[in-house]
């Protein structure tokens, strides 16, 4: 039995686990939220070769008092023949759409044409990436200048120098997704990938979690007028590369303005990366366990800690201190 849990923040600022239920019959790899415009909707994907969409049902008032909520499965996506390694909802301007990727190298894009009916999803696209996929990221840009775009990362372990990050773009003419770009410099297994929020820029920023943390910019060049209609070509630059984790980097995620990147590594740390106003990226914080057992009770397992920035004699060591409940 493999569970998912949902935590809610109450009015007084405390976090409570309001639901815990069996979601899959294999390890649950990822869980992701849809935009609240579609209601309270989650998607999960698992080793059990399925992805599922869940909706919160507003229960009886008793449940609310007890702080519990109910989630029901609206649909199971069973097209994959191997472990489904990632599931992500598309940006909301594309409607209610999600993409999954599997260990057999297939990316599938589903759409729910009626946003009020979460049980009806149709498979719109199947993209064969040729390499085992581990992660996907939708480009969040809603600009008319940018076609829908999805980045796919591969954790294929066999010794080769194939690009482990591929960019697929939707072609308005063929009505299909086609490979627009591959990051040839990323040849080690990729565990996570994330586009940064767009901020109205003409170019895209992509973070990659591989044997280190890498940040790329993708600048669209003039669309080539080929017979299949314009597929964008990109100028790719690497703007940062950090091996501070000194081990595999498993996750990368951007804050809401795309100004800070958080990375999780095998070293048990979370590192925060930020660019200063001169566009130089630096580490601005590290979160690390100290391995010591916590004193006192911890019924909910929630601890408050504060993260400060650089510490100098202008202030005493208020930074770096943690308080547990």
């Amino acid at each position, binding site marked *: 039995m493999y569970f998912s849990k949902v935590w809610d923040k109450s009015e007084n600022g405390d976090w409570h686990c309001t639901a815990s239920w069996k979601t899959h019959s294999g390890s649950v790899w990822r869980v992701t939220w849809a935009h609240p415009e579609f209601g309270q909707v989650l998607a999960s994907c698992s080793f059990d070769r399925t992805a599922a969409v869940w909706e919160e049902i507003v229960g009886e008032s008793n449940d609310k008092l007890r702080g519990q909520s109910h989630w029901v499965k609206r649909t199971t996506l069973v097209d994959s023949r191997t472990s489904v390694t990632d599931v992500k909802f598309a940006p909301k301007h594309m409607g209610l759409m999600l993409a999954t990727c599997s260990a057999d190298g297939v990316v599938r894009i589903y759409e729910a044409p009626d946003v009020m009916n979460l049980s009806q999803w149709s498979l719109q696209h199947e993209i064969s990436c040729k390499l085992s996929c581990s992660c996907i990221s939708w480009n969040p840009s809603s600009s008319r200048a940018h076609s829908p775009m999805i980045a796919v990362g591969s954790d294929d372990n066999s010794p080769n120098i194939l690009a482990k990050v591929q960019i697929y773009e939707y072609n308005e003419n063929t009505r299909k997704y086609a490979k627009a770009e591959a990051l040839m410099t990323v040849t080690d297994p990729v565990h996570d990938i994330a586009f940064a929020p767009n901020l109205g820029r003409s170019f895209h920023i992509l973070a990659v979690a591989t044997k280190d943390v890498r940040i790329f910019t993708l600048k669209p060049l003039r669309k080539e007028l080929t017979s299949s209609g314009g597929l964008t070509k990109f100028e790719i630059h690497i703007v940062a590369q950090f091996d501070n984790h000194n081990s595999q980097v498993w996750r990368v995620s951007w804050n809401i303005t795309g100004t800070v990147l958080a990375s999780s590594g*095998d070293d048990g740390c979370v590192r925060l990366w930020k660019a200063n106003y001169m566009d130089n990226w630096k580490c601005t914080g590290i979160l*690390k366990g100290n391995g010591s057992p916590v004193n006192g009770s911890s019924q909910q397992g929630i601890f408050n800690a504060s993260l400060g920035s650089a510490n100098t004699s202008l202030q005493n060591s208020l930074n770096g201190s943690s308080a547990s409940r």
Partner: protein
Amino acid sequence: PPLLVVPGADPSARQLCFAWGPAEALVCETLFGSRGTGEGGPSSSRLFVVRKDQDIYIQTLRKLFNESHGIFIGLQRSEEELAGKSRKAQLVQVSKNYRSVIRACMEDMHQAAISARDPALHSQYSTQVSILSAMELIWNLCEILFVEAAAAGPLLLRLLDWVRLHVCDVDNMVREVLSSENPSKHELFWNVVDVFVLQGRMDEARHLLSKEVSANPTSVNMYKILDDLMKKMPVPSLSNTQTLTEMELKWQHWHEECQRYLQDGTFASNSHMESICKILLGDEDAILEKKELLTTWYHFLVTRLLYSHPTVKPMELRFYAQSSMDLFLGGESSPEPLDTILMAAFEFEMHQVIKECSIALSNWWFVAHLTDLLDHCKLLQSHNLYFGSNMREFLLLEYASGLFSHHSLWQLGVDYFDHCPEYGRVYLELHIERIPLNTEQKALKVLRICEQRQMHEQVRSICKIMAMKALRNNRLGSALSWSIRAKDAAFATLISDRFLKDYCERGSFSDLDLIDNLGPSMLLSDRLTFLGKYREFHRLYGEKRFSEAARLLLMLMTARIAPRSFWMTLLTDALPLLEQKEVIFSAEQTYELMRCLEDLTTGKSDKQKFQEDDVETMKVEMLRLALARNLARVIIKEGTLEGS
């Protein structure tokens, strides 16, 4: 980079998963990399809530944030047309306002520290007081050097004020001596005289000295000379009564006079007075001997300048500053961050000041507001940057973003984004979408802000989110209001259908108030229009305005406002009207109704008719009968002449 310890998490056993939130971040223990079988995994994972220091400071600095917001907005809107002196005076006033807000906050914090019982809290407040004090110190210096850009002459006077305001370590001692019965007998008497001399407070020094001489008449001659020298010391004036050159000349003469008295051995028998004379002569060693009273190198700097180069020019400060710091610290200690910042200011390296402050302070308040002010003074060159169009905007964006993690201070952040021309709007769009809309009031507040700025997409999105939430909680009226506000026709249709479905099931409407008062928004969607009109029909019937009700009912079908699926219900609603004692439907209307009924029933196949339940067939039969009867009655009625 600062390390945050996550208590109890063991990096050798688990990894940490991170998620960004609007107000805080969440960290969860996990195990990556256990691919393959998918078996096993952490049995229990703990969830950690991580908040930035900023949030702690927000609580204690709330007043500072609120009041400085007013000053900031005022500055953005201030008259740019004012030129030269008046503009400068205006900017200096703004700077003073900021500083007074800092001081007020310091005062509050100081009170809080005193009254805090909990030692940890007391320590936190005390730390905050010293940070604010440092901030005010730096700001004040920047005001003198950059905003006011004091010229040689006034520059020294300003610096003297600055030192007097900020070197408070000696205040207690001064108070103690002055308030004692016999100050000149106090063991710290000469220290206090020295303090006054070092700070250029001549009158106060002379006053104290006079007490000493009345106690020790033997030194009266020495005293008279020293007193005279101190009285005559030329100082730069703020008014235009003398030029710099005139002052320099006078000063030179005075300096030579002091020199003569010293060399004559006038003060030889009183080491205290001799030392004072040496200080008046700007003797570095003599001044440095009073290190304990100076307490800081910048005090040493200003005293040096007072007694050796009172007409120092702004651009010369850097040399004196560097040497003063070197002499004062004497290689024993290295400069602290505060020292580095002040030095950068003396060197007129504005960007360096801002950079160092950004590093040293954990919140963006200081650098954001100071940089904005300096930008208004037209002192910052603009670089074209990646994040924000220039440093001012970059810092304001950082500061304002931080405010958004607070449940009410985010509103201040909105105004700051408004004044960031390059990225302010998009930052606002991103942040405002993430504000938790816990209550209707908050949602309305956020909406108003978006509407004021023509942020149509955000308006639509927020309304949609609220409508969805209401719908899920079965609050149909609220859901309908929100979809009307979002101008979301599709959703309005959906909700109207729900209302109608509810009516069919329960026989009554909820949220009558809302439906009755739809007004022109009724036109948003056909279904909504029908809902409104249908409700109107019920109202008319309730008010016994039967013929109007009848007309409306018929119109709903003939004008195709009613969805087909609802016609049966409408026709059933017509039954009571058909069975009134009085004839309500005219012949023509009755024919129309019959046509509608036939329309409905002929569409069905035989199989469907067979499967229809008895209630349905009975209804149809009843209707046919009622319509026929009505037709009969109305034909007679219409065929009958009045009065016959």
